[in-house]
């Protein structure tokens, strides 16, 4: 059992939790992920590590309540426990040796791009953080990002925070201003990462993306997380989750992501029914 040390509501459906998991905290590095299971009936759900505190033995996760397990997790309170918490899994990001990087987060992806930006910043790289959200109510980690970047631009699709545009618009703008990046990190919805890669490919800027596909064990056993990279089949859990964005077959990944859509709806429906019973 793993204790919830802290819970914070970041926006309407996005929550932050600090979980007591000393073994995971001891080894965690930016880019790695954990798998949690809320209760005996729960799914095994992968989440990228947002932060960690080795002394406290805690790992921070940030999640959006999109499926039954994340909704159940969101209902847990500080001091309560979750059943399983495994990690750190996957390979740490390789972020050494870059001079100037644009770190882009889309929506919840910002929670994952944050530790990468922080790592780059601490390694002495000049960091431009870009984060995009649908509207101003969905913005997360703005203050945190500002602290670990030399420049931070938060943009919204509808312009409700005063800056309108997609992250790709901002990236183009920054490149046009003459910023010479030797690295772009893009983490968010597959469509967004694909769009970023289309731009950086043009400019020949190395681009790291992070995949978060369907998986069960997270240790290479199920093959459910397989993606196509440079014409080969790779497992996001053991070969990733970071990949060279210019080699990833995003169209394939986008279509595979839809496999359980119908089931997710059914599970959510069930979740609401159970919720009503409890009310």
């Amino acid at each position, binding site marked *: 059992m793993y204790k919830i040390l802290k819970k914070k509501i970041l926006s309407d459906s996005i929550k932050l939790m600090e979980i007591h998991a000393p073994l995971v905290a001891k080894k965690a590095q930016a880019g790695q992920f954990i798998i949690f*299971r809320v209760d005996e009936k729960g799914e095994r759900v992968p989440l990228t590590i947002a932060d960690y505190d080795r002394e406290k033995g805690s790992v921070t996760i940030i999640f959006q309540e999109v499926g039954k397990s994340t909704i159940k997790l969101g209902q847990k309170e500080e001091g309560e426990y979750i059943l*399983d918490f*495994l*990690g750190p899994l996957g390979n740490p990001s390789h972020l050494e040796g870059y001079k100037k990087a644009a770190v882009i987060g889309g929506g919840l992806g910002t929670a994952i791009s944050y530790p990468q930006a922080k790592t780059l910043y601490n390694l002495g790289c000049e960091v431009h953080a870009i984060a995009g959200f649908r509207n101003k109510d969905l913005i997360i980690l703005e203050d945190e990002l500002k602290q670990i970047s030399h420049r931070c631009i938060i943009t919204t699709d509808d312009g409700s925070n005063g800056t309108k545009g997609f992250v790709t618009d901002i990236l183009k703008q920054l490149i046009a201003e003459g910023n010479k990046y030797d690295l772009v990190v893009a983490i968010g919805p597959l469509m967004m990462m694909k769009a970023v890669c289309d731009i950086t490919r043009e400019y020949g800027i190395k681009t790291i993306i992070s995949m978060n596909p369907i998986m069960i064990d997270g240790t*290479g056993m199920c093959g*459910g997380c397989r993606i196509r990279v440079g014409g080969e*089949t790779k497992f996001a859990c053991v070969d990733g989750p970071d990949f060279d964005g210019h080699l990833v077959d995003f169209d394939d990944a986008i279509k595979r992501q839809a*496999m359980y859509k119908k*089931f997710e709806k*059914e599970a959510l429906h069930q979740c609401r029914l159970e919720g009503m019973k409890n009310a």
Partner: protein
Amino acid sequence: MPNMSPKKTPMPHIEDKLRTTTFKEVALGYSEEEAKQEAERCLNCKHRPCVSGCPVGVQIPDFISLIKEGRYIEAYEKITETNTLPAICGRVCPQENQCEKYCVRGIKGESVGIGRLERFAADYYLKHGEFKAPKIEKNNIKVAVIGSGPAGLACAGELAKRGYDVTIFEAFHKPGGVLVYGIPEFRLPKEIVQKEIDALTQMGVKIQTNVVVGKSILIEELFNEYGFSAVFIGTGAGLPSFLNIEGESYNGVYSANEFLTRINLMKAYEFPNVDTPIYVGKKVAVVGGGNVAMDAARSAKRLGADEVYIIYRRSEKEMPARREEVEHAKEEGIIFKVLTNPVRILGDENYWVKGIEVVDMVLGDVDESGRQKPVEVEGSNHVIDVNTVIIAIGQTPNPLIKNTTKGLETNKKGCIVTKDEYGQTSLENVYAGGDAVTGAATVILAMGAGRKAAMAIDKKLKGEKD
């Protein structure tokens, strides 16, 4: 007088109508009467050919004689002298290639049902026997066992008996390895696996789930930080192989590992009462001819598929699956397409599987595996309409430990190299056994390897102490 019937005493089965609708165990096991009747078929040969066919040397005629006399608990104890997990092995061993292959009765008729008798003795014990945790003098020497599958459980059991302070590390949330995530309930009830695990914990073995050695903890840390004196690696062969043909990305294509894990470990068949879903189309193709393929095909049938095909490139004779599994699959209406090889998987506009293109094969010359090599029949390509494809063509060892343990020698297939049959690896006090060493093999071989490694660890550590 021995029972001279040329056939085995039939195994009672669950009612036919329940066969393909529930996950309940299919073979129900012998009654006392049936067991005695079958035991009487054993001629108690002086030269004991059956024993030579058993990978762990179970004293088969001895335990069968005890069954004849109705001394069932003693029969069980006789088996456990060399086999730690008889209730499991009695169910999942490929007896027709081991003990039963050499049975004299098999020359004219069917061999003695050794597996069935082993299972009977073990089940009888589980039901009527009293678990006596053996009196163990603890030596307080810590040994780590990585993986809680058959190799790990056997190794832990043997070490615990010898007084060691054993901790098993398991990556999943539940111990048992392939016995819980891989082999379905209808072939091996999870209750039995749990009883074996309970017996270990009663002997003082500790089990830490949710720990991936190689990620959460490294092997060198087990020695340096956690104070273990020896480590046994029994991490199995968990990495699924794919066909590397066109269309394997389509939705509806599973590795057998994923398909079976969703069912066995995550209980996806209870969705939406549990949260893990599984998709099974009305028409399912399972590629492969081993036990895993049979398990996947029979599971698909139980989850409501109307037509389930086994697609295998050689003939039925070469199938590596246990004879009984092939028979059960046929009884349950699985359609066998042998001498058939997949060429590509076809998808629809929504990226879902709609068919599998296959080609007919003929058997040609004998290859290095000693079997006739299948050769394509040119121009015989045709499409089988299916909406789920399950790939069950084998697994290779997981590379997580190999990648994070300096100096641990592995071969080109990723299997850990051992210096002797006792599992000594290239690192001092690190032993390995089971599928992690051999590549995908059997429960009994893994168990035997775990046990042997335990003896070697004991010898090594005692030697160190003196």
